[in-house]
């Protein structure tokens, strides 16, 4: 008896099984493993499998991770701050682009424009980060350009190996992820609503504030979540753009796992980071729900 002869329920289960097992093996198991390991401790090269909250105590009592001190922020708040800034910069820059493609570009050209916007993605992420190093570096495009124009005499050191360079690089890298959801939200706005607003006495600008912007909020929320969540876990950009100077959460976790060989502490840091991202996202979603209640 072949699978097609069985009941719909069995057939559905059989069809779902491969991706389900895949998700189980590559998502659920690693996650459970991380949770379990975060309650163990490292003893030399082996793991001590006695349940303990020691790692969490370490995280919340050390000034490094959460609390910081008078001179420097904790790594977690700093990472959240960087992600929030990247999100803000990305969404603020992406909105006009999405608006332009949706409202200004002729309908038959829109597909072409979206295609052009994705062109940076044809280059590997790693290479794009390196290209930003070339642009922002000590002898980079920006510094040599400004020097040859006589604007500056000494190369600017604020460009590279600090948080600015991380924010610039990440904002560029995630631009498309912000443009697309905002574009989709703008496309969904019935154009006669804009005419109705003008007909009722509003100028184009006040129409934007009273109609277009509120109706594009779902797209903005989507863009914020899509940029915020992955950037806080982004490892490559801070690793390359911060140099030896600073560390963000992802780098600290990587160090614990691969250099200091302290898996349990790394696992606990991962859990704390995930919880922080989860809470921020949840707050955002709830605010959005409240805003959209009975609307859109």
């Amino acid at each position: 008896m072949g699978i097609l002869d069985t009941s719909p329920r069995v057939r559905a289960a059989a069809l779902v099984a491969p991706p389900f097992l895949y998700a189980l093996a590559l998502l659920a198991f690693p996650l459970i493993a991380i949770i379990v390991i975060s309650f163990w401790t490292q003893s030399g090269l082996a793991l001590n499998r006695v349940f303990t909250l020691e790692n969490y105590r370490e995280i919340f009592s050390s000034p490094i991770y959460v609390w910081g001190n008078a001179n420097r922020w904790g790594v977690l708040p700093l990472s959240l701050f960087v992600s929030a800034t990247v999100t803000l910069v990305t969404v603020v820059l992406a909105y006009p682009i999405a608006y332009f493609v949706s409202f200004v570009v002729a309908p038959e050209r829109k597909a072409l424009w979206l295609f052009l916007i994705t062109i940076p993605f044809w280059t590997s992420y790693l290479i794009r980060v390196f290209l930003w190093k070339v642009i922002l570096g000590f002898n980079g495009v920006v510094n040599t350009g400004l020097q040859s124009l006589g604007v500056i005499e000494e190369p600017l050191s604020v460009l590279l190996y600090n948080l600015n360079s991380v924010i610039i690089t990440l904002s560029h890298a995630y631009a498309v992820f912000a443009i697309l959801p905002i574009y989709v939200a703008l496309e969904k706005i019935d154009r006669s609503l804009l005419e109705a607003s003008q007909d009722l006495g509003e100028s184009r600008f006040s129409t934007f504030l009273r109609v277009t912007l509120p109706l594009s909020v779902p797209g903005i929320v989507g863009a914020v979540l899509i940029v915020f969540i992955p950037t806080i876990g982004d490892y490559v950009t801070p690793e390359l753009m911060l140099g030896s100077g600073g560390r963000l959460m992802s780098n600290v976790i990587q160090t614990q796992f691969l250099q200091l060989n302290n898996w349990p502490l790394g696992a606990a840091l991962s859990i704390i980071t995930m919880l922080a991202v989860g809470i921020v996202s949840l707050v955002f979603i709830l605010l959005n729900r409240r805003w959209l209640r009975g609307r859109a």
Partner: protein
Amino acid sequence: MTYSPSAAPLIQLRDVHKHYGDYHALRGIDLEIKKGEFFSLLGPSGCGKTTLLRTIAGFEAPSSGSLTIDGRDMAGVAANHRPTNMVFQSYAIFPHLSVAENVGFGLRRDPRSKAEKARAVAESLEMVGLGGYGARAAHALSGGQRQRVALARALILKPKVLLLDEPLSALDKKMRETMQVELIKLQRNVGITFILVTHDQEEALIMSDRIAVMFEGNIAQMADPETMYRRPNSRRVAEFIGKMNLLPATAAMERNRIVVDVAGLGRGAIEPDQAPSGVQPGATTVGIRPETLSILFPGETTDRRLAAGTVDEVVYFGDMTYYDVRIPGVEQPLTISMKNLIGRPVLDVGAVTQVVWDERSLVVLSR
């Protein structure tokens, strides 16, 4: 204020043209619409009626020609500065606002206090029969309710002109008929000039003080509903509005009277107003409406003119029956509508019958 034919023109269009690239959407529109008038722009899709409405609203700028509203030239005046408000075909209700917020949308710059504005919104909703709906979410409304919100939202601003872009086309038949009557009443109450765009000739006849029929960017005829129906000035207008039988005929002048010899029916003298587009001696076309013809049922007599024919097709509507009757010597069968009065049978296809006609109902259509 209600419409009177002598009222001063509120809207004047002079030789208005509109080009979209190669497409000539409006081809020299001359139009005067009076204060308090219920004016309809009627025509098939693509005739330019919506373009004309949007030109008056300020969403389209004419390529040439002038538009004045209440004596003021509208060239360069944006839609948000015109004394017009529009009810859109899609109603364009803001989905992120409540019913009251929608209706009060245009009151932002109104100097009145918040409480006064809220009262105005409530009154406006009351006027369109949606009293107490203010707090509802706009997206939860039915089609008819959305239309009422759109009306309230436009009328609360007390525009000089209310523009209606096929406002009833999205409603079902029953709802449409109800809204037609309500719109007429509303227009009489508020006294605002209404300009309605529609492709539904019946709707235009029911609601309007005057109708302009448009084809291909031109106004083909402008008249009150009765004239439009009884004295169309061309075959095209005649066939667009209601059903019209068209018959070949020969016209001649005899002792200062116009006499037409209608194929299959016979000769008859007509009055000058029965030839709204003029008449030349020789071959022409006459039109005759289905309800001005009748069938002589068995047992009935008449002193009017008769023509013999056979029933070709019977369409039964309940209150009415439509017969197609073939008359010898005429290619197209004549359509005749008969009220199904007591004792009147419904004839069968093939029945031999007599058609009663009257020269007073003929209209000569030389174009």
